[in-house]
């Protein structure tokens, strides 16, 4: 199998790597770059836990080959914030208990980042529609919706 040379910028850092053609972007991020915050659930695009931003837009990293991301800028959960310096959405999840086991959380957050970029003050219905492609088996979604509302509030300058 011939490997492909790719250049990908992930969270602002440039990587020059060789990958097998069918290497999934999700596996590339987790196994080659050791950025394990991006989770892999269903591997067929249903659960949303592998969602990352590619050139600013949400994508399923499990349905994208790493070679298709050649030249792209990727943002994963590791690029969003740190424990010491959380992104407003992460603060929202922290305050409103938007997670229990945490498996779906990185995908939820990356999806919410894109939502708030388009709609800084989304309605509950808009939040629920945006989250319809991200499955959570713990929370029943209520606290996730509240977390995103809270994140939006903080981003708007609320305390």
């Amino acid at each position, binding site marked *: 199998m011939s490997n492909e040379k790719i250049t990908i910028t992930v969270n602002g850092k440039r990587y020059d790597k060789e990958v097998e053609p069918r290497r999934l972007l999700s596996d590339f991020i987790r196994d080659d770059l050791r950025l394990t915050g991006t989770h892999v659930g269903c591997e067929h695009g249903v659960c949303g836990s592998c969602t990352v931003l590619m050139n600013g837009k949400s994508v*399923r990293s499990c*349905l994208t080959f790493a070679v298709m991301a050649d030249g792209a800028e990727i943002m994963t959960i590791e690029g969003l914030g740190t424990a010491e310096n959380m992104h407003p959405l992460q603060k929202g999840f922290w305050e409103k208990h938007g997670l229990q086991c945490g498996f779906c959380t990185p995908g939820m957050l990356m999806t919410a980042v894109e939502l708030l970029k388009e709609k800084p003050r989304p309605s509950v219905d808009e939040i629920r529609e945006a989250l319809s492609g991200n499955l959570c088996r713990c929370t029943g979604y209520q606290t996730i919706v509240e977390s995103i509302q809270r994140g939006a509030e903080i981003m708007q300058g609320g305390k």
Partner: protein
Amino acid sequence: MTTTRFHAPERLDEAIRLLAADDEARPLAGGQTLVAMLNADLLSPSQIISLHRIAALKGIEKRSDGSVRIGAMTTHAGLARSDVLRDGHRLLAQAAGRIGHEAIRNRGTIGGAVAHGDPSADYPPALVALDAVIEAVGPKGKREIPASDFFQGFLTTALGQGEIVAAIILPPSLNQARTHYEKFARVEGDFATVSVAVALWRGGVRIALGGVGPVPVRSAEAEAELQAGQLSDAAINDAGALLVAASDPLDDVRGSADYRRRLIPRLVKRAIRAAQAKDAR
């Protein structure tokens, strides 16, 4: 995982040459179905020919005759937001916005979805209702296939070996129509249990149903009935019954055949009334 070679040519003729030379090769558009099938080991192509670098497959263009040519690699999200699609052509943008979820729409393409030919997908009924034409390119050159002939059966299209969808063309005629896409799905983002695409204009009515047969379902009798009855409640009821008779739904996880038959008349009525409520042109 099987051995797969990968090519991402920049020229359309190069992609066609590679595909025509190897019937185990598969073209890759946005990958939202193909990569999922590869992950599930449902396919093991010898080569993947990615179309993402081919400029000739990109862009949405309004032509001087009022028709719109949509490059096959246009994403669902790009189509849903396009301001090139106006008036009656908005039907296609409406359908694009109902496909899957934003992360799927950001990658999935109209060419890939159309070539896949899933009868529960959103584009097939919308394209049939809009009288669209599929521009296919293959080793023998380019040909244009009306959407109503393109979809031939479950996951089966008129595309031949080595042939790909290059563009979708929306004719100018239905641009003056009032249109609406009505989709009933169990949850947001799912494939349709039943969907209805409707175009109404001074000279006629076109209705195509998704999810209730191996290809989009139309009924000339139903359309004639609606036209003659001037979209009265009685005419819509009769047309609903005729469309139920023309449909051939299956029982599956998204609903029983009987449930789908019950949905058809209700959704047809909803779709027609919603189309009528749009601004007259």
